[in-house]
C-alpha cells in the first residue's frame, strides 16, 4: 500500500468508527425518548408519588434534583475555584503540588457508589444528620470537586502567559491580574465545565441512594422557610432525586405500570441533561462575547 491508499483506508476506518458511535448514541436517545415521552404529562411532571408503590408523578423528585444540584454547586464552585486558581497560578512545581494533583486524580476516579457509602457512614450515621439534602449535597461535592477543579485549572492555564505579563508590567498585583484579566478570559471555559458537571450531578444516583435517601416526603410548596420541617427548602429532609427514583422504581417498584413510569422519568432526565449540555454551549459563547467585548 502506498501512502495515499493508507490514507484512504484510515479515513474510511475513522469515519466508520465515528458513525458507529454517533449511531449508538442516537439509537439510545431515540429509544429512551420514544418509549418514555408518551407517558409524560403535566400531572406526571407535577404530581406526587405514592410512597408505597412508587406510582404517580415525579414533581417532588424533579424539585429535589434541582435543589440538590444548586446546593451542590453552591458548595463546590467556590472551593474548586480557589483550588483551581491556586493550582494554576500559585502552586510551585514541587512534590507537594504533585501530591495534591495525585490526590485530585484519585478522588476523581473514586466510584460514585463508594463516595455515597462514605457520605452515608460519615454524615448520615456518624454525624447523625440522617438521609438529607445536605448529606447528598456534600457527597455530590466530593464527586464533583476534582473534575471542576481540573476544569478550572485547565481553563486558567490555557490563557496565554503574555496576558499575565501584561497585567504585572502595568503594576497590577498578581491577584488583581488573576481576577480582573485572566479569569474573565477563562470564564467561558469554566462556565461550560460547570454546566456540564451540573448535567452529570443531575443524573447521579449511586452517590445519593445512601445520602439524600430514597424517599420523597410530600412537601408543602407554599412554605419557603428553610427552617420548617415541611418546607421544600429544608436541607435536613430526605430527598429522593429523579435519578434515584428511576433506580428505585425499576428495582422495587410495585406499581403495575412501573416500566412506563421509569421510562417516562428517564426521558425527563435525559431531556434535562441535554438541556444542560446545550445551555453550556450557549452560555459559554455568550459570556465569551460579553467579556471580550467582541460581537
Amino acid at each position, binding site marked *: 500500500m502506498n501512502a495515499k491508499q493508507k490514507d484512504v483506508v484510515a479515513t474510511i476506518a475513522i469515519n466508520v468508527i465515528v458513525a458507529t458511535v454517533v449511531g449508538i448514541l442516537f439509537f439510545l436517545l431515540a429509544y429512551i425518548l420514544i418509549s418514555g415521552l408518551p407517558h409524560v404529562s403535566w400531572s406526571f411532571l407535577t404530581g406526587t408519588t405514592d410512597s408505597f408503590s412508587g406510582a404517580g408523578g415525579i414533581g417532588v423528585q424533579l424539585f429535589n434534583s434541582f435543589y440538590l444540584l444548586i446546593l451542590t454547586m453552591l458548595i463546590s464552585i467556590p472551593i474548586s475555584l480557589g483550588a483551581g486558581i491556586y493550582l494554576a497560578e500559585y502552586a510551585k512545581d514541587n512534590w507537594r503540588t504533585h501530591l495534591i494533583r495525585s490526590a485530585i486524580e484519585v478522588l476523581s476516579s473514586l466510584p460514585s457508589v463508594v463516595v455515597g457509602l462514605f457520605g452515608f457512614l460519615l454524615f448520615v450515621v456518624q454525624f447523625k444528620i440522617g438521609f438529607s439534602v445536605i448529606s447528598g449535597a456534600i457527597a455530590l461535592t466530593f464527586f464533583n470537586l476534582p473534575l471542576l477543579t481540573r476544569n478550572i485549572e485547565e481553563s486558567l492555564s490555557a490563557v*496565554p502567559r*503574555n*496576558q499575565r*505579563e*501584561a*497585567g*504585572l*508590567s*502595568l*503594576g*497590577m*498585583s498578581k491577584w*488583581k491580574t488573576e481576577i*480582573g*484579566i485572566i479569569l*474573565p*478570559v477563562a470564564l467561558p471555559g469554566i462556565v461550560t465545565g460547570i454546566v456540564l458537571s451540573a448535567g452529570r450531578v443531575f443524573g447521579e444516583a449511586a452517590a445519593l441512594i445512601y445520602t439524600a435517601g430514597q424517599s420523597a416526603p410530600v412537601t408543602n410548596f407554599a412554605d419557603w422557610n428553610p427552617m420548617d420541617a415541611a418546607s421544600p427548602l429544608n436541607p435536613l429532609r430526605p430527598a429522593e432525586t429523579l435519578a434515584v427514583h428511576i433506580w428505585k422504581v425499576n428495582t422495587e417498584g410495585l406499581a403495575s405500570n412501573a416500566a412506563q413510569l421509569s421510562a417516562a422519568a428517564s426521558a425527563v432526565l435525559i431531556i434535562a441533561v441535554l438541556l444542560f449540555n446545550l445551555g453550556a454551549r450557549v452560555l459559554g459563547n455568550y459570556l465569551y462575547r460579553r*467579556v*471580550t*467585548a*467582541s*460581537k
Partner: protein
Amino acid sequence: MLKQYSFEKTAVQSFADNVPLALRTENLQVFYGANHAMHDANLAFPKNQITALIGASGSGKSTYLRSLNRMNDGIATVTGKIWYHDVDINEPDVNIYEIRRHIGMVFQRPNPFAKSIRENIIYALRAEGIKDKQVLAQRVEESLKGAALWDEVKDTLDKSALALSGGQQQRLCIARSIAMQPDVLLLDEPCSALDPISTVKVEETLAQLREKYTIIIVTHNMQQASRISSQCAFFHLGHVMEYTPTAKMFSDPQIPVTQDYISGSFG
C-alpha cells in the same frame, strides 16, 4: 561553531556627571538556576533618549531588560544594583508594583487584554484607584494620541482590542503603558511581529515619545537601532561588550566581536 571572543576586552561608555540619567545598573547579574545568563552589566541610560540593546539571539537582551522593572522576580535571581532616582530598586523591600508603574514595558508579541480598547487602557488605572470618569477619558485620549493610534480607533473605543491589526495592537500596548505616565519605557522587540508599515508607525511613535520618556528598546534590526537610537549596547553571550553612541557603533565599532556582528560575519 561560534568563534571565541575574549570577554575581557569591552568598550562600555560611561557618562559625565552633568548628563542626567534615568536608570543605571551596577554589576547586574542574572541567574536562571545554575545558568548564569547575565554577567556584570554596567549600563547607564540618559534621560529622554532612546537606547537600543542589540545582540544575537540568546545573548541576554530580554533577560537584562526584564530585570530593570523586576519582571524577573520569581523567574530568575538578579544581583547587583539598579539605580533609579537614587534608589536601588533591586532591593527586596521596594514596592515592585510602584516600580512597574514608573518603568513600563511593552513586549515582543502584542498582548492586549481581551477587553475593549478603552478598558485596555483604563483597567490598570482604575485598579490604581483613579475613578474620575473625566480623568480616565482624558488619559485614554492622551495615551492613544501619544501612541499615534487615536485617529484610527477614536470611534470604536468600545470594540474589542483583539479585533485590531497586529500593529494597532502593539501601539495600543504602548498607549496602555504610557497611560500609567511612566518615566521609562522598556520595549522588547516591539516590531518583530509587525509588517514594515506598522513598524514605521511604531518607530515614529517612539521618536515622539522620546521627548517625554526615556526609552530602552531591544531590537534585532540594526537599521532600526541606527534609525531611532542615540546609544546602542551590544550584548554577547550574557556580557555587555560594547556601549557607545549609535552612530559610532555602526561606523566605528571598537572591538572585534562588535565589528564581526555589525558586518554580519559573526559566528
